[in-house]
């Protein structure tokens, strides 16, 4: 798999009003592969938008390097093959949807009325293309944004909070479009807070906090196997507590006991111990975490005083 985004030790430092340096992005290593939908997650102020701006060459990194489509960030040649849709985009309100498309097309030196109309039709704006943008709803504006982002048939799309502030119907429309982009072989880099949305469509994610990547990888791998649910028959809850790890949640119903615990790799030992105690194993199921749980757990872990102390 070839990489479309690659950053090494990417760092962006600003000076606070008191002159103290603040690392908004710190030693960021990202690897985004061609054809995937990559979720870039983090709490407010984590450094997501700053990272995107560095990748687009709008701001410059203090240290490290960033490559986009095999070019250094900001290279005009790379810009010919990428698209960016900012969070809550604004368009010149006096212009119609079609005029906006013509304007952005002209920035690529494209003069193709049919292409502009076709793209507006693709995002279901064929009946509104001659209305001023000022009359469009948020969802329609977002769809114009997505249509304009396809003008150059991009290989890579940066979408910053693409579904932010949209109603459920518009959410679905935008989500479907993003999935279509992936099916067409484009790479989509999504920065978002909408974790359920990211979980539905992303192949891989990176969670960043305070400018550092705290989790990165394949979404299925990250969410699977973090916990395990074991059901035993003929075991008392008190006995189950002796085998299970500290954070286990134990519940019983009739002669079965359910143990929900972190998968610490001790499952085989527990099974042996349970069998030695004369009980039987009904089922062992690795439980899939929700992305929200992973996100909250990862961010809390980093923000906890103990970690903060170690980091400091």
């Amino acid at each position, binding site marked *: 798999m070839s990489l479309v985004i690659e950053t090494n030790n990417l760092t962006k430092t600003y000076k606070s009003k008191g002159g103290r340096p603040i690392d908004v992005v710190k030693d960021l290593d990202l690897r985004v592969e061609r054809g995937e939908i990559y979720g870039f997650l983090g709490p407010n102020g984590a450094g997501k938008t700053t990272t995107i701006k560095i990748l687009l060459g709008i701001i410059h990194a203090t240290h490290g390097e960033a490559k986009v489509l095999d070019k250094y960030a900001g290279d005009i040649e790379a810009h*010919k093959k990428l698209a960016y849709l900012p969070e809550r985009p604004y368009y010149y309100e006096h212009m119609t949807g079609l005029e906006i498309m013509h304007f952005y097309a002209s*920035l690529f030196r494209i003069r193709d009325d049919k292409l502009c109309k076709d793209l507006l039709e693709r995002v279901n704006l064929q009946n509104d293309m001659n209305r001023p943008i000022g009359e469009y709803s948020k969802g329609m504006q977002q769809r114009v944004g997505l249509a304009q982002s396809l003008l150059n048939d991009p290989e890579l799309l940066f979408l910053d909070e693409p579904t932010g502030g949209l109603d459920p119907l518009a959410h679905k429309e935008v989500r479907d479009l993003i999935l279509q982009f992936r099916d067409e072989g484009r790479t989509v880099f999504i920065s978002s807070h909408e974790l359920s949305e990211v979980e539905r469509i992303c192949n891989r994610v990176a969670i960043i906090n305070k400018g550092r990547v705290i989790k990165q990888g394949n979404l299925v791998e990250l969410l699977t196997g973090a916990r395990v649910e074991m059901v035993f028959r003929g075991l008392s809850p008190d006995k189950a507590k002796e085998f299970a790890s500290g954070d286990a949640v134990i519940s019983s119903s009739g002669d079965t006991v359910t143990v929900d615990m972190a998968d610490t790799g001790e499952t085989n030992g527990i099974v042996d111990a349970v069998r030695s105690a004369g009980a039987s194993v009904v089922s062992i199921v690795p439980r899939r975490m929700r992305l929200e749980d992973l996100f909250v757990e990862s961010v809390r872990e980093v923000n906890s005083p103990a970690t903060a102390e170690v980091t400091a």
Partner: protein
Amino acid sequence: MNIILSIAKTTIGEAVRRRILLVILLIGTLFLVVAPSLNMLTARQETTVLKGLTLGVIQITSAVIALVLTVYMLPNEVERRTIYTILSKPVQRWQFLLGKYLGAIGALGLMIGLMTFTLLFVYAAMQGDKKPPLPISLFIADLIALVAMTGRLKDKAMGQVVIGIMAAGLMGILIWLGVQSDQLDTFSEFARTGAMFYVQMCLLAAVGVFFSTFASPVVNFFLSGGVYMVGSLFNTLFDSVSKNADMPTFAKYAVKTIQSIVPNFQNFNVQNSVVNPTQIIRGEAFHYINLAGYGIAYISILLIIAILIFDKKEV
């Protein structure tokens, strides 16, 4: 060039719809129309004072428009994030800045043109018994039709042709008015004064764009306004300081430094020959070309520095 012109065109579209600019323009234009009715002076004084007053109104209104237009230009683009969608396309920063500047001076041209046009018409209409009613009626009818049709024509290309023909018609009627009232020379002087105001305002807009690359809108307003004031009002004072033998050397150097940095806006105030027709400028054509060259040179320097700063700026 296509990219720069696209950005410029969009900037003009935005500018001519900004309410604050339209209000300033409306106040200025209204004053030009109402000014002749302040008829409390004798005939000779009336004409002289009126010319000076109305040209002054155009100058002040244009300066305020130039400042308001440019000080918010870049900050607005950043605040509304439009700059990000543009700079993420294959657009160089210099193309963006130049496009914005050309758009700003395009809008300024339209506004100064409208005010100069209004002034010419008002001046023609108040030519006492020489006032020809037919051209004036035609002018008003054409103007009303033009305003009514603007933006209502669905076919854009056809609309531009129609508007172009009607604007040319307005100009033609105006020239006819000038011929009929024996005021063609005065008309051309007004037009030249308007053109020099325009170069002056293009220079002020370049100052505004330059400061907007590093200053906030409010600071920019005062900085650009300050440069305009110094360049417009203090040159006579500076000249007298540098020629005064009693002044200390450091004061003379300070004045010379300010004079060489701050553009001389006063140069472009050529309305004296209009207000006092007895005043004659020698080598007039060369003088105007020289002035325009001075303005273009200063504008180029300011824009080059602005581009260099903007290229490194983190937006």
